[in-house]
Structure formats: structure tokens, C-alpha cells
């Protein structure tokens, strides 16, 4: 039953007239579950998020099915979608300074969300907003209500964005690189707050990032995207310890850890050879094959799909397989 799942995505395709950025995504997120979406720039992760929210930029279009809160979001009108946005499904964006209205006071921006989706009046909404600020460990919440976005720090702004997204206890929160634009010292604090707040509300979370440790810390499952497709998906611990797709392995190997850095400066960071292909001229067959050490003739001619089971990888020669994959 779709009511049990926070969101069910089937064959999501996102394209404009020139190219296709998301080439058929499939996943299901149960209620309260946490999924990480990993990928480099150009993999299509942000467009996926925007497609789920119905906020694609002009010229872009989404096809497929996105079931959430009992309806298929793709087929809904802007008016119907706006009813759900902020209430059952919400998003935290990457840059909090440009994402907040510069001419309105912060308190008004957040409390207006509460007033929009609940019966609360002005005073009640303001009271709840102050509460939210306190939950977010924001200093002097009452004063903050009357402040403007440019008067506070980046970390505080992002916490306010999170507050706005969580204010109405949504079923699903999508966080798109929420800490990338913040100082390193502040990132951990914000993530911890996000973690706690999501947990308290029992919301499902899709955490989009290129930063693997964040996913390891916060998510149950992870989906790895490459060139518009999910190439591997499964429980976080297992995927990170025993990746099946070569791209995933490459990503993991290129993470600097204390183990693989020799302190005399003699070690080199592993990296995946080659570059992410531009979306308008993707290689034939498996999009990763030009950069993959295990590529064969089959990889060039046939496009692999995700196999079944809890640990899914789209690869003709997944790591650890003793028997070559059969054509599905």
C-alpha cells in the first residue's frame, strides 16, 4: 500500500528538449526510512530531487510515476502539488542565503509556512516558530524572529531552512547537499540537528550528497547514481564494505582515510581514471565502461539494469560475482 511508503519512484525520466538527465530511476522508500543519494555533479541527483518536488526549472519535464501520499505526483497540477509541498513533502536546499527571502523577516517566513498548512493563527504560528528555533538550538529565538537573513550566520540560516522544511511534520524530507555551502566546523552540528529532528518526527529522509561519510552516519540505505541512472543500491554498511559496482568501489577507494595516507607523503590518493561523461554524449552500453577496469565487449554493447534483491547493482561483472551475470 502506497500509504506505508513515503515515496515510490518508478521509471523516473527527467529531460529537456536537448538532453535527458535522469534516465529511468526506480526506488521505494518506506515510511521513516533514510536513503542516501550519492553521485558526482552531473549525475542527475539534484534534478531528481526537484522532480520529486515538482520544482523543475523551466524547460525541464518529468515522466514516470512518483507515488506519494496516495497520488502520483507527476500527474498533479501545480495547485495540488503546492498543497503537499511543505506539508507532506519538503526540501532543504544547498545555499541558505539565496534561498531565503532577503526582504522579509525570518520569523514571518517560517511562521507563514505553519499558517499555510495548519489552522494556526498568527500568534500560535509565531509561538510554534519560536519553539522550532529552540529545537534547532538557535540562540535567542525571540530576537531571531525579527531578524533578516543577511544579519545571521550561514549555519543559522541553514538551521532555519531545516526548521521551515520540518515545521509541518512532513512524511518525506529531501535534503540536497545541505551542508556543502557551510563552514566545515558548522557542518557536523547542522547534520546532527537534522538527524535528531527527522528522527523525532518519524519523517523519511533522502539525503543527497557527494560526501560518503555523511551517508554512512545518517542513512539506512544508499543509492549510487552515475550519468542519470542508479548503478548500485542497498543497505549502507554492506554497500560501503562490499561494493558490487566498480564505480562505487572507485568512489570508496578515493576517499581519504587515515589508513591509506602514509604520513611521509609517499601515498597517492586513488582516483577513478577519466571523467564523468557529458549527458548529451553518453557512451554506448554501460555509461561507466570507458572508466572501468573490468569492462568487456558486453559492457559496450548492452546496457545493464539493476538486478533484484536487497543488494542491487547494474553491472555485467559485479565485484564478487563468481558466475557471469545473465542477460536479464
Amino acid at each position, binding site marked *: 500500500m502506497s500509504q506505508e511508503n513515503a515515496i515510490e519512484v518508478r521509471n523516473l525520466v527527467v529531460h*529537456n*528538449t*536537448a538532453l535527458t538527465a535522469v534516465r529511468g530511476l526506480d526506488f521505494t522508500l518506506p515510511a521513516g526510512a533514510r536513503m542516501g543519494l550519492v553521485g558526482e555533479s552531473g549525475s542527475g541527483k539534484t534534478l531528481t530531487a526537484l522532480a520529486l518536488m515538482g520544482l523543475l*526549472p*523551466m*524547460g525541464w*519535464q518529468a515522466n514516470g510515476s512518483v507515488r506519494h501520499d496516495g497520488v502520483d505526483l507527476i500527474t498533479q497540477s501545480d495547485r495540488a502539488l503546492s498543497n503537499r509541498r511543505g506539508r507532506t513533502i519538503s526540501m532543504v536546499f544547498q545555499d541558505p542565503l539565496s534561498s531565503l527571502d532577503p526582504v522579509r523577516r525570518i520569523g514571518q517566513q517560517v511562521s507563514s509556512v505553519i499558517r499555510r498548512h495548519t489552522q494556526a493563527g498568527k500568534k500560535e504560528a509565531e509561538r510554534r516558530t519560536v519553539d522550532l528555533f529552540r529545537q534547532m538550538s538557535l540562540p535567542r529565538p525571540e530576537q531571531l524572529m525579527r531578524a533578516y537573513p543577511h544579519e545571521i550566520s550561514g549555519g543559522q540560516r541553514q538551521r532555519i531552512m531545516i526548521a521551515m522544511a520540518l515545521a509541518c511534520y512532513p512524511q518525506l524530507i529531501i535534503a540536497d547537499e545541505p551542508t556543502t555551502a557551510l563552514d566545515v566546523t558548522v557542518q557536523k552540528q547542522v547534520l546532527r540537528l537534522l538527524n535528531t529532528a527527522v528522527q523525532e518526527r518519524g519523517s523519511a529522509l533522502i539525503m543527497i550528497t557527494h560526501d560518503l561519510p555523511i551517508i554512512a552516519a545518517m542513512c539506512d540505505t544508499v543509492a549510487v547514481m552515475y550519468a542519470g541512472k542508479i548503478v548500485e543500491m542497498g543497505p549502507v554498511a554492506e554497500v560501503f564494505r562490499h561494493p558490487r559496482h566498480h564505480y562505487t568501489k572507485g568512489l570508496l577507494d578515493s576517499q581519504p582515510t587515515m589508513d591509506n595516507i602514509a604520513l611521509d607523503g609517499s601515498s597517492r590518493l586513488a582516483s577513478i581514471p577519466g571523467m564523468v561523461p557529458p549527458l548529451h554524449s553518453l557512451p554506448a552500453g554501460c555509461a561507466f565502461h570507458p572508466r572501468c577496469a573490468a569492462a568487456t565487449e558486453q559492457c559496450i554493447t548492452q546496457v545493464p539494469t539493476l538486478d533484484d534483491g536487497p543488494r542491487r547493482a547494474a553491472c555485467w561483472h559485479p565485484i564478487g560475482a563468481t558466475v557471469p551475470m545473465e542477460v536479464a
Partner: protein
Amino acid sequence: MILSKSSHLPNPAPLDVPASPPARRQRRKLPRNASLLVGIVLTTIFLAVALVSFFYLPSNPNIPVIRNRLLPAGTAGHWLGTDVLGRDIVAQLMVGARTSILVGAGGATLSLILGLIAGLAAASSGKIADEAISRGADILLSIPGMVTALVLAATMGSGALTTILALTAFFTPSFTRVVRSAAIGVLNEDFITAARLYGRGKIFVLIRHVLPNIAGVMIVQFTLYFAAGILTEAGLSYLGVGVHRPSISWGLMLNEAQQQVGISSPLAIWPGLAIVLMVLGLNLLGDGLRDVLDPKLARRAS
């Protein structure tokens, strides 16, 4: 009315640029440089007409021939007819083109020169000089151009020269601001610092490095001020403080025509149409040039 005086403002978004790739396949999109083409064509036509007027005119535009008064358009020898004193309209339009171009270009050129000097000075001098020049320009901008023109006419008498000076007086502050912001953009680039480190003097850097890089902006602005100058000159001549007979101006023609408006309306149409087409041509040319130079402009002039 001086319409493009606001050209010193951040230029409004070009009118034929879509915000993102077009979504519908059946949308018929004009080529990016449609502006430019039409602008070039129109401007060339008028320049040609003005040039030709020095060598050939259908008949004398100033001598009254009363028996020919108010002939309708299409009459042999007077394609657009004659005015109330029997003077050929086409001939008057041709000579009027001369005035528009001379005064418009004259004003724009003088403003360009003065604006360059002031703007470059502001961009490359210390904070105080920059503030002084910028504030000065702002204040001068608050004196309406029409008013300046009237004041000059009061003190120096009216005529083409006064009009050119009036145009200069109110385009120069705008030009200064445009030059200043474009120059500052260039001066912040690293190659300028490199040049200065090599020991190049300030003037040298300005002329050799800054000038070529702001040339695009200058050309676009010049074209737009040229257009504005034509509009203004027409307005002043209409009011009677611009050029007088035997010089001819389209604005002057409209003034004369208005007195006849009840009797013969075509007289009120041709000169106005000429103004619109010429100004339109120049504006399209300026916008088209701006689009062509855009990638460089966006980098330099911000």
C-alpha cells in the same frame, strides 16, 4: 522626450533572449541576430538617404510654391505630397535626415569623448576623485535634459549647435557612469595588475588595455545615445528651440503640420514615422550589437 537617457541604468534584459532552452517544439524562434539585421538595414537606409540629399533632391524643400499647396501623396514628382506652402515632403524628409544624423551623432560623439575622460578618470583615480565625479554625474543627471536644453537656448539662442551642446550636457553624465563601471570591471582583471607590475604608467594602461576592452560597451551606448539624441532633437525643434528654417528637422515639420492637423493629417504622419523608424533602427542596432558582444560584455562591464 529623452527616452534612452536611462541607458546609463543597468541595461534591461535583451528582449529576444529566452530564459532557458525552449520547451515546445513548434515554437518559431527568431534568429538571435534579427535585431542586428533589421537595425543595420534601417540605419543604412537613413544614412544613405541623408547622403543622397546632398546630391539630389526632388525639389527645393524650402521655397514655397503656393499653387502646389497640400497636394496628396502619389502626385507625380511629389510622392508623399506637399505641405501647406507647396514644399515637397520627400525633399524635406531627406534634408531632415541630415539634421537628425548631424545633431544626434554630434551630441553622442561629444558625450562619448567627455564621458570617456571623466569615466576613466573616475575608475582609475583614488576614492575621493571617484566619489566626486560619480556624485557630480548623479547630480547633473537630476537636471532634466529638456530643461538644460531650454536654459541653453535661453542663454545662447537656439540652433543646431545649442542642441548638440544640450545633448552633450545630459548624455555625458550617463556616459561617464557607463564608462566608469565598465572600466572598473576591466581594471580588476589580473592582466592589469601584471601590466602595472611591469612598470606601465597609468595612462598607458588605460589607453592600451582598458580602452580596447570597453570598446564594445562604448559602441553599444553610442548607438543608443545617437537614437536618443534624434528623439530629443526632434522634440526641441518641435518646441521651437531647436533648428529653424532653412534648416529642416522632422520635429520642425511636425510643429508646422500640427497647425494643419485638421485639414491634412498625412502631414503629421510622415515626419513622425521617419523618427520612429530611424530611432527604431538605431535601437535595434544597439541591442543587436550588445547581443553579439554579450559574452565579452558580461565579463567586462559588470
